[in-house]
């Protein structure tokens, strides 16, 4: 039996701004995304009575966004921060709120504007991170940002299980193949294994193309009850299952947080809520800040045994025509980087059946969000069917 909440809420609106080098403020992008989502759903802004807000790397939007939207009264409003898990979290809390009658239509919005004209990307990020205490040593050691930690995760996987550079590369290549079908993707030029090897190193074993893009943009989704969603413009996308898991055991020996992430615990709980099995998942939209994140997430959810992620992805099964279509819009590696909203947007497009040339079987769509260094995790199971 599914959980009583399974399939009772639906995503009825999706708004995406132009992505990439769009030099607008995060606030303008957020406002535009919410308005696009309302239009997509066939709703008037006066019908919006809930707003959940998540700011990206520049912290460019805040609780006051409701004023920029001209919303005078709301029955649900808050600012949330769970990094890459925020998008999934917002949809979960919105689903619970509409089911409980707190609000009818809740917009969940994310926007970010790290690309500034005439400014280096590192400066945009650096101005928002002021490390203290021992963490102030990390730049001297060479540990700025998340790349070194994920690179060490990949290297530990390689040393422990024999995972190869080519296997990481195949993840990037499969996603680039999907991106060719996505007109909203930033990187659509096909990539060969030679291209992958020729991509400059950042922190070995990561080439630049093992790392997500940096994008400006805004995304909003509107969550309502399953009943209301049926009468709106778009095919409802039902939220069949969800879960979160947050792990913090990085600093002590004896734990292996780089080889197993929180998805290992969130996955079974989300499936249980939907009364579904792993085999019921027909496609994956996985948070892919790095190629390695995809590999470890596939293992954590049990698509293959721990340690076998390399051979699992090697045959291209994640790509077009493969047996486990994954990140079908190109993901954060090739389409655009909107934190957890990147997998959410593609999950909604696919669950609606609006994928066009890149449409994959959509009976049950797994969407994951990941933040920190495999610390914060949110799972969604989306479907065109309520049950």
């Amino acid at each position: 039996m599914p959980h009583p909440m399974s399939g009772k809420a639906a995503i009825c609106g999706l708004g995406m701004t132009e992505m990439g080098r769009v030099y607008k403020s995060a606030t303008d992008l957020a406002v535009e995304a919410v308005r696009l989502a309302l239009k997509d759903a066939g709703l008037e802004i006066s019908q919006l009575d809930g707003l959940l807000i998540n700011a990206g790397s520049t912290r460019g939007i805040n609780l006051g966004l409701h004023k920029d939207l001209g919303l005078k009264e709301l029955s649900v409003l808050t600012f949330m921060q769970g990094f890459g898990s925020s998008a999934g979290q917002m949809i979960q809390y919105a689903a619970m709120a509409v089911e409980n009658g707190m609000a009818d239509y809740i917009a969940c919005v994310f926007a970010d504007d790290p690309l500034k004209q005439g400014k280096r990307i590192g400066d945009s990020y650096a101005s928002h991170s002021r490390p203290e205490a021992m963490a102030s040593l990390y730049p001297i050691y060479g540990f700025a940002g998340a790349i070194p930690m994920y690179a060490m995760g990949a290297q530990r996987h390689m040393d422990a299980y024999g995972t190869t550079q080519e296997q990481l590369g195949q993840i990037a290549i499969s996603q680039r193949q999907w991106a060719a079908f996505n007109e909203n993707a930033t990187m659509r030029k096909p990539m060969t294994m030679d291209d992958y090897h020729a991509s400059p190193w950042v922190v070995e074993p990561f080439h630049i193309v093992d790392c997500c893009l940096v994008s400006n943009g805004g995304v909003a989704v509107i969550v309502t009850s399953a009943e209301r969603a049926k009468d709106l413009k778009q095919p409802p996308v039902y939220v069949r299952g969800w879960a979160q898991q947050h792990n913090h055991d990085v600093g002590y020996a004896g734990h292996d947080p780089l080889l197993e992430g929180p998805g290992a615990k969130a996955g079974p709980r989300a499936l249980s809520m939907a009364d579904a099995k792993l085999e019921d998942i027909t496609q994956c939209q996985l948070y892919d800040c790095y190629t390695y994140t995809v590999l470890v997430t596939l293992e954590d959810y049990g698509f293959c045994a721990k340690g076998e992620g390399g051979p699992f992805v090697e045959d291209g099964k994640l790509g077009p025509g493969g047996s486990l279509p994954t990140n079908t819009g190109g993901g954060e590696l090739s389409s655009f980087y909107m934190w957890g909203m990147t997998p959410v947007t593609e999950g909604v497009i696919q669950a609606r059946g609006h994928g066009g040339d890149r449409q994959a079987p959509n009976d049950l769509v797994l969407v994951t969000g990941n933040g920190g260094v495999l610390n914060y995790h949110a799972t969604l199971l989306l479907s065109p069917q309520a049950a």
Partner: protein
Amino acid sequence: MSEQSWIPEPSEKTAPFFDGARQGKLRLQKCTDCSTWGYPPVSSCSHCGSDQIEWADASGHGTVYSHARLMRAYHPRHQDRLPLILAQIDIAEGVRLMTNIIDAEPSDVRVGDAVVAAFETFPDGGVLPVFKPA
């Protein structure tokens, strides 16, 4: 950038770590109740929750939990020494440190390798704990 800025100004909470480094010691924090070690600054024990924390000198021995190679310099210390070996070291006392491995061929480093603490002295007298093959 002046070399004096390489080691950040120690705070009250981190000064013993840097003092220890200048004396060639890997000085960390330890719970006086259950003897669990912590990477500073901790205010309570990760194992028993006690707030009775003292500073103590670790053995300096450890093994490689993982490693990677920094290929782009963004700090004066990185210049002329790429690839710089980044590592997480599990020290014998049970703490995982983010640090560098020096005096090693980057391609020779493997998970599980034995390493020992070493100390890199900057022109201004600041000292940074690092590790080298044991």
